[in-house]
């Protein structure tokens, strides 16, 4: 058991840090997430791609970096420390591994390069109004018609579909028998006639998610991944990856560092809030819980590097990671006192906008509202607890 960084690790860290500092687009530094345009999400992704660093979690043969667990960890830390916009997760973390694990050679050849380069923006067609936690009850129907599937249905909570080029979509190809045994995994071009994207505005005032309506959408049979009616296995594989990528340890460290900055300049009766008893106690508890999560994640990563895929223990990362993210936004909102009130207009944040209150306070409540999603998405924390109970504890 050893967690010391070697001299090589430290040299690697210095190399990563220098690369980020020298190459990260200056105009993106500190940009409010609400102000990000489509190109902004892709800017760093493309720079990393040119460097060959865009897919650290992929096997080297498919475009991964071939880094050790420690190096991947260091890269993640340095990225979050700086606050980089990460490569698009739906392609990188979710679809990519599905294609190199289950896809045909032809699919590997046409899907993987676009994910790596950022030229293809993928969105996730999973949830439906009637299929949330019970994803297997999905109804979007795909009927074989010659060398196409004709798809009809309604997907919801589709993150950033408004920017997407393609969708990976769970569809029902069989209604007889068990629900899980009639599901297929299809790749659908967002430009196919019959695809309609409708925005859903969330309580923070932002536009992150959408509904997608599919009306007689014709999808070539070549876009089926794996076998017809055998898509549920693929779906679950993807969900496992989604869940273990969600802990967000490094980003939470950054969020805590930002919280400390706010608490340093905020005063309570002349003292920095950071030094006051109630606040500092809550902050310490958060930092300690985050350290515990970090080491749990390292143990999971170490096990994975020995060949074990993300198991049900990754549900711990999802539950604890998201609860910590939420607590950070909660404490940050507490830290700004009365200045939790002013509203930052997310949809039309223009030059006319005059921010109210100290800089750290802007949009802090809205971040708190937005983060309530984390205990709901990626498999709700209630479902995650069911998974641990059943798959780990055998209850």
């Amino acid at each position, binding site marked *: 058991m050893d967690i010391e960084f070697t001299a090589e690790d430290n040299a690697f860290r210095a190399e990563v840090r220098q690369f980020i500092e020298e190459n990260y687009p200056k105009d993106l530094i500190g940009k409010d997430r609400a102000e990000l345009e489509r190109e902004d999400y892709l800017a760093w992704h493309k720079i990393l791609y040119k460097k060959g660093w865009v897919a650290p979690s992929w096997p080297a043969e498919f475009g991964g970096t071939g880094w050790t667990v420690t190096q991947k960890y260091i890269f993640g830390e340095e990225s979050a420390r700086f606050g980089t916009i990460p490569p698009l997760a739906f392609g990188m973390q979710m679809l990519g591994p599905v294609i190199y694990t289950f896809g045909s050679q032809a699919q590997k050849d046409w899907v993987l390069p676009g994910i790596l380069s950022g030229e293809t923006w993928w969105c996730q067609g999973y949830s439906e109004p009637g299929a949330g936690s019970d994803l297997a009850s999905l109804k979007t129907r795909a009927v074989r018609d010659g060398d196409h599937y004709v798809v009809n249905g309604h997907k919801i909570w589709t993150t950033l579909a408004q920017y997407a080029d393609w969708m990976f979509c769970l569809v029902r190809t069989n209604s007889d028998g068990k629900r899980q045994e009639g599901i297929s995994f299809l790749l659908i071009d967002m430009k196919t006639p019959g695809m309609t994207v409708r925005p*859903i505005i969330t*309580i923070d005032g932002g536009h992150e998610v959408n509904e997608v309506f599919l009306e007689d959408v014709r999808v070539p049979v070549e876009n089926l991944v794996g076998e017809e009616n055998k898509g549920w296995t693929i779906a679950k594989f993807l969900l496992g990856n989604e869940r273990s990528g969600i802990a967000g340890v490094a980003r939470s460290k950054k969020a805590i560092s930002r919280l400390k900055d706010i608490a340093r300049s905020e005063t*309570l009766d002349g003292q920095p809030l950071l030094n006051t008893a109630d606040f500092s106690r809550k902050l310490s508890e958060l930092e300690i819980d985050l350290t515990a999560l970090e080491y749990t994640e390292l143990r999971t990563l170490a096990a994975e590097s020995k060949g074990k895929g993300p198991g049900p223990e990754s549900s711990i990362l999802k539950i604890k990671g998201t609860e910590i993210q939420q607590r950070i936004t909660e404490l940050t909102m507490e830290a700004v006192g009365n200045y*939790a*009130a*002013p509203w930052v207009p997310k949809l039309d944040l223009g030059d006319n906008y005059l921010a109210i209150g*100290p800089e750290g306070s802007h949009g802090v*409540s809205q971040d708190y509202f937005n983060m*309530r999603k984390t205990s709901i998405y990626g498999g709700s924390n209630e479902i995650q607890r069911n998974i641990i109970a059943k798959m780990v504890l055998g209850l």
Partner: protein
Amino acid sequence: MDFGFSEEQTLLRNMVQSFVQDNYDFDSRMKIVRSEDGWSRDNWKQFAELGLLAAPFDEDMGGLDGGPIETMIIMEEFGRGLVVEPYLPTVVLCGGILKRHASDAQKQAYLPFLIAGDSVWALAYAEPQSRYNLADVLVSAKADGDGYVLNGAKAVVLGAPWADKLIVSARISGNQRDQAGIGLFVVDKSASGVSTQDYPTVDGARASEIVFENVRVDGDAVISTDGFAIIEEAIDYGIGALCGEAIGQMKCLNDATVEYCKTRKQFGVPIGSFQVLQHRMVDMFMEYEQAVSMTYMINMKLEESAAERRKAASGAKVQIGKSGRFIGQQSVQLHGGMGMTEELNVGHYFKRLTMIDTQFGNVDHHLRRFAAQ
């Protein structure tokens, strides 16, 4: 021992409930929030006509001789409707100060217009650096003849965009956080030297940052030259009213959540049949009941001694802060993705309850204040 409501109180509740049902359904509320002004003058006129603006004032001032319980009932029903019009700043905070501490001449000058719905008020007490300390006052009041000249900045003044009249705390003497030496002044928002930066708040209302630059206040507009106790009392009354609003909203959230969990089916059954969620809703129910208890307690104690009132107000504020946070968060959680949408009312109750916790001092602040009594 009686926790019941009188016939008049029940009639009052029914009247406000009817108003909300007829004028303030969720769609109507969102139209008002999204309008340019962000409130409805018509609604305010109706409040006047219904006698709601007169509720807590003495009969000889044109009031209805109501007390904290009447205010609580009105605020609870307003809370259920997510009403944004500035009843709390105008009637409870400023109206209360005028009722309890203004001179007869001042009452004559101000209250009839307030009650008639012709003037809207806001209390400017918090400052950019003050956090929740009511004594942290840097806005200065320099003696000038029989009056004063005010200079400085006030922060997050709730309802100020809609107000024409302000009550402002400003320091006549003493150091930044001394309780002694703070004056209370009535200022016309349109007075020379007053500038405002208006903005929407995350819970659907409006507030302002206000700057006073050599604003002259005449002697007859001075409510007090040593007003800390008055502000503190006003905020405690405000807490009593806020508790009323909060329990109305908590009830709406709990009812909506139970109903949703009874009808939303996953895995072939209503999700309300899952024990984990049942226990969660029971916890929400208990938090609501405890919040109701503390709301009744504070509104019965507001007229007690200052020490009792302070302790009761802080205890009640802690309760609704904690209960409001739990019920708000869990309502969103149990509604799944739907709870995250701007389109559903659940998120708006959640946002308002969140802001109620940040107003007039949050849980940490009131735990400290409670301990200090």
